[in-house]
């Protein structure tokens, strides 16, 4: 096994990465003095600690040889994420119902089995439930189908 592909080594790299990002984007923030700390003091302190910890984790991981990372299955992750993004794009422009249909269909594709009739049934149940709970029950100011003005 490649020792650079262990869970620990990669997570160390991730912490270093986040620390560097915070340092880079926080460089314009004034540091201030220890008495009157500026907005940049604490972020800089935290990012430096994070980079230090990340480095430590990396070194330990290289010495001890940690667990390898499991294979990533792209299908569920991609489909679920795409589903949520579609929902976000459709919700205000088209309304709850279109957004809901798209989300339920895309996320159902992410699973092992996809039976069309089941998904349609699930969509109908969820559509009715959401309309009752969010529109009628909680009185949220949302459109069910925007084109129809509901």
């Amino acid at each position: 096994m490649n020792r650079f592909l262990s869970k620990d080594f990669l997570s160390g790299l991730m912490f270093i990465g986040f620390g560097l990002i915070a340092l880079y984007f926080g460089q314009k923030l004034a540091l201030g003095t220890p008495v009157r700390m500026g907005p940049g003091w604490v972020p800089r302190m935290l990012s430096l600690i994070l980079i230090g910890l990340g480095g430590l984790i990396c070194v330990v991981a290289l010495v001890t040889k940690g667990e390898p990372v499991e294979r990533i299955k792209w299908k569920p992750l991609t489909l679920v994420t795409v589903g949520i993004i579609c929902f976000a794009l459709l919700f205000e422009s088209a309304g709850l119902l279109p957004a809901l249909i798209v989300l339920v269909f895309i996320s159902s594709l992410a699973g092992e089995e996809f039976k069309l009739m089941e998904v349609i049934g699930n969509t109908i149940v969820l559509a009715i439930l959401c309309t009752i709970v969010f529109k009628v029950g909680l009185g949220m100011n949302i459109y069910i189908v925007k084109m129809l003005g509901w």
Partner: protein
Amino acid sequence: MELLNNLALGLSVAVSFQNLLYALLGCMVGTLIGVLPGIGPVATIAMLLPITFHLPPTASLIMLAGIYYGAQYGGSTTSILVNLPGEASSVVTCLDGYQMARKGRAGAALSISAVGSFFAGTVGTIIIVIFAEPLTRMAQKFGPADYCALMALGLVAAVVLASGSVTKAIAMVFLGLLFGLIGTDVNTGAQRFTFDVPELSDGIDFAPIAMGLFGIAEIVVNLERHLERGGAIKVGSLWPTREEIRRSIPAVLRGTTLGALLGVLPGGGPTLGAFSAYTLEKKLSKHPEEFGKGAVEGVAAPEAANNAAAQTSFIPMLTLGIPSNAVMALMVGAMIIQGIQPGPEVMTKKPDLFWGMIVSMWIGNAMLVVINLPMIGMWVKLLTVPYRYLAPAILLFCCIGAYSLQNSTFHVLQVAAFGVLGYVFVKLGCEGAPFLLGLVLGPQMEEYFRRAMLLSRGNAMVFLERPISLGLLITTALLLVLMALPSIKKARKEAFQEEG
């Protein structure tokens, strides 16, 4: 008797029609998600946080608390009947609970765990009542430096007790603290890490983050592993035999004590309580060979322990404003949403909320016995709903919930982004709970840190000169040193392996 007056006040608040209704609702939802594997209380509470905007503070906290301890009851049903843990805290219940079910004693296992849980919940509530006032009074003496040290201790202890790799978990805390800084700096008004996104200038909302990390990431992982379910076993008679009762009473007592103690510790809570109680019973038993083959103590003790711990884990949150686990971090969030700053002031400024919530916990526990035993048939039916129906529904509720936070789709996109990040965390073996604790405590901790430094004229020694702060920091350091000791390292590793 001030205590009795307080309890009377709490009772009057808790039995109002509205609060009873929300307690019942919370317990029902809690049982539901407890029974269903693949969704836990953290994701559910995050999902429902936006809805609590529309409720009065007391009702919303009562409901959220109900979800948390309701999940402890519901989780055992799934463990016993289908040998799948409904919740992390009922993993051990599978060992003996399912074996009892195979011997036709499912009903007895269910009723022992429900009644044991109720007893433990009652004791847990009494402990909260007794310790709330002295702890609060102590906390009122704390200065900014002391608070900062207390939070450091809370965070470190939470990490040490609750996770696999200590270094990684501490790094996660720092990452959480860093994310907590996003937004406008309170003291200077400077924009920090907002990237000119107006939605970020008020600070990053933790509800979408919690939904992403605990809800979405969990769904993705479950879809990968295609969660399977065996057929449910018939429940049979709910009445335990005399022998079963005789053996479970001492187990429940021990489980309750251990769970209540471990629940108060930062990072403790239901899961730790249940595991320790099971190990203890196995060590004390005259027939350790029966464990894993349907020993009734193996069900009674962990079930009592997880519920006692669920109750007592409210103590640090309610009295000091310091969350000890991810669920408590969200409760802190729920209070902030309602404009209540968690901490020792809650008890003096909002006594109706404080005591109302405590009394309602006991009422909720009583409701749960009824919800779980006579209505067991309904929950068993729910177990047959396949995960492919649930996943889209959970996703949908997360999306709508996130949108309703501020009526903006930006928050929905945030859920998606943190879902991906949460997935990365899972793959790298980094835990989400320390991150969430850091995120929630971050802004407050910075505030206390800067105030302490201002008061001491920039002298960092202030943290070592104040006795309270010094004591807390020494404890923190001791904990860290202890974890580095080889013998403890080994014991911890074994304990977590059993868990995994």
